[in-house]
């Protein structure tokens, strides 16, 4: 099987590798892991995410709690907090971490095939962070307006406050007081 890279990289780690990780390593040989505040954080390549998540579910970790995205400026990171509903038998708490390129709409495989409940959470990440989930059944914006500009949780996101909020107050509901082109991008409601 694969070389124990994570263990080799962390010689000071006194803790032996948890048994669940051996199963994950069969899928993604180059994963790295560490234990932080009791949680087992596993870093995976993007292409192994779905198979690893499915394996994890087969092992009894059947509760996908949170889907999180973080903008690190040089990359985007997806975090999946996975627990087990049967917490007495499976005590570990997994955090799957996947790095994505910081593009306008980086692609990430959707976990809705394994946990249909990821649907709204992934839509939220798409809406607020701009990650496109491949294989998602209905990837639309969920919290913001459909023609909302950009993805607000990006660190470099800025917003023209006049666009939606003030323009119709300033120029009137029909845009009668607007200068030529001043109603650009304003939708009458």
């Amino acid at each position: 099987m694969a070389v124990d890279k994570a263990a080799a990289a962390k010689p000071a780690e006194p803790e032996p590798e948890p048994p669940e990780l051996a199963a994950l390593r069969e899928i993604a040989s180059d994963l790295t892991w560490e234990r932080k505040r009791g949680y087992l954080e596993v870093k995976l390549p993007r292409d192994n995410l779905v198979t690893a998540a499915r394996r994890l579910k087969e092992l009894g970790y059947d509760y996908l709690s949170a889907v999180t995205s973080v903008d690190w400026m040089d990359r985007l990171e997806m975090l999946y907090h996975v627990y087990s509903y049967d917490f007495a038998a499976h005590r570990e708490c997994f955090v799957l971490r996947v790095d994505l390129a910081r593009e306008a709409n980086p692609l990430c495989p959707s976990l809705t095939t394994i946990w249909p409940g990821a649907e709204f959470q992934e839509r939220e990440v798409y809406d607020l962070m701009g990650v496109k989930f491949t294989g998602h059944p209905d990837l639309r914006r969920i919290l913001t307006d459909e023609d909302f500009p950009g993805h607000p949780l990006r660190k470099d996101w800025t917003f023209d406050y006049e666009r939606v909020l003030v323009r119709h107050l300033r120029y009137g509901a029909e845009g009668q007081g607007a200068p030529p082109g001043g109603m650009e991008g304003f939708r009458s409601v």
Partner: protein
Amino acid sequence: MFEGAAVELVQSPEDASELTLNMGPQHPSTHGVFRLILQLDGETVVGVRPVMGYLHRSTEKLGEARTYVQAVTLTDRMDYIAPMSNNLAYALAVEKLAGLEVPERAQYIRVIVTELNRIASHQIAVGTFGADVGTWFTPLIYTFREREEILDLFMMCAGVRMNPSYIRFGGVVRDVPPDFVERARRFLDKMPRKIDEYESLLTNNEIFQARTKGIGMLPPELAKQYSVTGPIARASGIPYDVRRAEPYSIYDRFAWNVPVRYGGDCFDRYMIRITEMRESVKIVQQALRDIPEGEIRGRMPKVLRPPKGDAYARIEAPKGELGFYIVSDGSTQPYRFKVRAPSFINLTVLGQLTIGHKVADAVVILGSFDIVMGEVDR
């Protein structure tokens, strides 16, 4: 998407028997500004599309632009009928991140106020659920009568009734006044009788049972696939409670039960909330008995700058698992402020449950979910 009146009927041209019914966003039974686009075949729901975001205030973005202490006020305004739980989850996340200690007395006060808040939240859930199934407002007024006393207790300790921002990292804002314990004890002594009163109005009511039993059945497999937590999961036979799964604060010191029912219908979801109120009463009574004297706030730096890193803390909020994921870059403001909102994630399964039921039952199923839009939209 947002055009149109609050309720509109659209006859689809290709099939005259199918009808699109727009429920909400301003509809009394949607518990806020939530919109359901129902596809109807006669009276039967064949398609559901939830539309949300009307109350979106971008709490996560705002949290990144405020200091750690300022962000506490944002948490109040998410689940505004259980603000203490939100405060607690956020405080736990920051304490994990910064490694802060919480003194004993503050731990007890935290448990007391969060469990009182759970009772208050379930009172709203039960009362409005009654209104949804057509009991009009009688149970709602009954539950609000006792909720008022809980808010009075919050007023004593936090100074305000709603949005208290009472639980902060390292402890609580200020100590409870001397007569708080006695007054809370008096309130809790009569609370079981009052819960009996709610039950006599609702549980044994024949119409209430007819409207809720066998409606919106959520099998445990489906609940697990959809990451459902809280009373909804426990009504479907999943004994999952974060207070047991990953004990936080001092819940391991009290004797209490996790109520579980196996029907998975709207009636069981209601019954779980009733039973949880009784269990919360037990927890608070024990906490009031054991509460020690002492400090209410640990040693805190004047300006909180947690070391670089991230932390995830989760609690059992009245509506399910509430989690906060905070990333620190070493400055005074969170780098990432993520909320795992239970109402929002529980809503994912709503469409699955509603399809196949009558349109009148869609209101009941939504009511049994006990959503709060401040938390769904954040």
